[in-house]
């Protein structure tokens, strides 16, 4: 987290260490010959973190208007045009009010009936948003945004949450004032015993149970269990347990009332050409990063692709070619890159699509 003010001093120090090799032995005497001084250039390349006190924040600025451009070209496909989407990730925007901005606590965090917890509902330090966008966004091309773009997108997100006005330009000079408008800036506590050091919080655990041994509780009451119709929501549990030993997995492909005694389910294998093999390929080649089975992610869902081309006589060859070569325009502006898989593999996925996502 060097910032520019530190750079000159560091430059002097590092220059000394690099030029005078023997000096380094004096610095780490126990293990001579191991490790070397980092150069200023190296540290600058990797030291990108920004702390809540804005140490490490590069100088710069970006406007809400610019942020909207960046957002719509690079962010909206996953996060939604208004940052509200939960299709790919948890929503970023929503759930905060002007009252929250005044008080610094998000009221809806205390409302169990409010369904989601968005990023802006939790965000207590604006540095966090800046730091994370800079280091990890966009999803498939992290660290590709310029400093100006990161300021701009940060400003735009806060604008979507009504924290900043449309005309605002966020910069290293006004970010501390923006911090004072965050809806949940006062929403964090370190009053707990789960920090594994002595600098924060308390030492005494908050939950103090007692190990009673005999006639302990009132009669146990069953409060919660999975309903029968969710019995196989995690697949057939018979296939998720070892076939030998004290227990077997329950066959959840059948209702509990039809339960018969356990037997080992044979391990399933993906036969070549089967739906499972095609699905495995969509995993292997990360198709599923952009295509959901039923839901649109970055690209169309597999099921939409299947139904669009269902009537095409040459659907298998057409789809296989599309998978290999990529394309744009059929489903919108977002291009699909060419995929490096074999012809047979492309055919296998295409076949599965062309047959309407058959399940066998």
């Amino acid at each position, binding site marked *: 987290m*060097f910032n520019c003010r*530190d750079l000159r001093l560091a430059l002097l120090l*590092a220059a000394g260490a690099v030029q005078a090799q023997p000096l380094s032995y004096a610095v*780490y005497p126990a293990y001579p010959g*191991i*490790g070397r*001084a980092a150069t200023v250039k190296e540290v600058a390349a*990797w030291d*990108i973190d920004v*702390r*809540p006190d804005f140490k*490490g924040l590069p100088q710069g600025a970006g406007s809400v208007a610019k942020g909207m451009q960046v957002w719509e070209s690079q962010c909206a496909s996953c996060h939604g045009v208004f940052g509200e989407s939960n299709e790919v*990730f948890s929503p970023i925007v929503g759930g905060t009010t002007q009252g929250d901005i005044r008080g610094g*606590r*998000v*009221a809806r*965090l205390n409302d*169990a009936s409010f369904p989601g917890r968005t990023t802006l509902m*939790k*965000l207590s*330090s604006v*540095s966090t948003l800046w730091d994370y966008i800079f280091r*990890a966004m966009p999803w498939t091309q992290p660290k590709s945004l310029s400093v100006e773009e990161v300021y701009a997108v940060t400003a735009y997100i806060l604008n979507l949450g009504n924290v900043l006005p449309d005309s605002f330009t966020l910069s290293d000079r006004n970010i501390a004032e923006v911090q004072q408008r965050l809806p949940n800036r006062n929403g*964090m*506590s*370190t*009053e707990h015993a789960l920090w*594994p*050091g002595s*600098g*924060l919080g308390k030492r005494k*655990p*908050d*939950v103090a*149970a007692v*190990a009673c*041994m005999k006639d*302990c*509780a009132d009669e*146990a*009451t069953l409060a*919660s269990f999975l309903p029968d119709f969710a*019995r196989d929501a995690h*697949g057939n549990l*018979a296939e*998720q347990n070892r076939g030998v030993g*004290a*227990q077997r*997995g*329950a066959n959840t492909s059948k209702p509990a*009332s039809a*339960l*018969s005694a356990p*037997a080992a389910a044979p*391990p399933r294998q993906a036969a070549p050409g089967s739906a499972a093999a095609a*699905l495995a390929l969509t995993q292997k080649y990360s198709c599923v990063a952009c295509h959901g*089975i*039923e839901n649109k*992610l970055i690209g169309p869902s597999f099921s939409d692709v299947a139904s669009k081309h269902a009537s095409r006589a040459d659907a298998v060859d057409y789809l296989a070619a599309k998978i290999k070569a990529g394309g744009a325009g059929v489903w919108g502006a977002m291009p699909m890159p060419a995929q490096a898989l074999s012809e047979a593999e492309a055919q296998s996925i295409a076949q599965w699509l062309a047959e309407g996502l058959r*399940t066998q």
Partner: protein
Amino acid sequence: MNSSMTIEMPYRASGRLLKAPENFIDPAGVRQVFAQARQGRRDFIRSAFAAAGAAVGAAAAPLALAAGNPVPPSGGDANILELPEHSRGLGQPVATDGYGRPSKYEANVQRRRSPGLTQTAQSSVSFAPLQSLFGIVTPSGLHFERHHQGWWDIDPSKHRLMLNGSDAEIMKTPMVFTMDELMRLPSVSRFHFIECGANTGMEWGNVAVPTCQYSHGMLSCSEFTGVPLKILLDMAGVDYKRARYVLGEGADGSSMTRTLPMELVESGEVLVAYGQNGEMLRPEQGYPLRLVVPGVQGVSWVKYLRRIEVGDRPYGSKDETIHYVDLMPGGLHRQYTGTQECKSVVTAPSGGQVLQGQGFCNISGLAWSGRGKVKRVDVSVDGGRNWRTARLQGPVMHKCLTRFNIDWVWDGKAALVQSRAIDDTGHVQPSYKQLRAVRGSRSIYHNNAVQTWLVQESGEVKNVQLS
């Protein structure tokens, strides 16, 4: 729905499973099921459950053991009388597979995703199959996975570790190490558990998943080999008076960052690790370098570790501000939570399994504490009314999984199986009632409540919660 709780069919010791349908669940379908499940639970009339007989280990009903291993009319088991091929032929040569693999009969034992939990497979989780594991070590290929932006297989000759300070005075010499250099330093090898802070997080409010793989499977345990981070910081010359916080940063797309307390580094426990269970780390576990932070939630064990920074304040990273913050009643979030408190779970018998018959059953499970060693584990089969102390299977190690087991004779009646761990600080694993009384039910993180498995008369085991 009540009817699902009392299965009147007597347990039968033999039978056949039909071929399973294709295991194909689309995310939309899963969301619907979960939504219905939540709805259903809301309507569920809380029914009193008459706890199974309290006479623990008392005279058992007649055993059904013979049914599983009968003597055929021919006078002997065909598996004994007719010598199998492997007793009569020539086996396979050495080094058939340069890196051996599990038996083909073990193919069901896999780490798995929980349907509907995440929308992408790169920022996601796979769960370790705890129900099928023995002892305390997790085979490296079954270690749970948590990636924030997908995993990589990084060329170790190109990987570097950098040390630097938050300002020019706090570290004398910012440094760079190659893997070769790190592996030349004196190493230590230690067994430790790693548990995701969100392990059992889906169960804070109510039962949401069927098996201990999904309820507790963001838990693994390995022998890790590496260099104490303190040695490296000493080499770089750290001003320990000011540098009370340490940032770890990954080299992957998310370049995950987490703050650690310097006290933990000074204890010598925090390792810069490259080894796992005798070999190098698996790529999914951060090959070639990761932090090992014993007792602290997995997100702090930064994978693909590229940089350590020392500073005088905590860093407020995304995974300590937006995620991995614990929502408390009243709407405050707890920030900088890390310690994994005392916890245990019975892994056999456990949810989604079926007991094979009445009679002897060895109840077995895992216990651990992020504050130290497991001192004692108690087991109840009547929903927590009466407890017996289980055997701890050695070795019992610091911030490491401990295997426990206890004898039980199942009489064929419904039973509520629980375990409760106590660590060497005296901390007792709480019940859901005790935990929720303090932390509510919306935290997501650090759920260390006592787990309950209902063994039904049919022998099928269900995940349940008591009140």
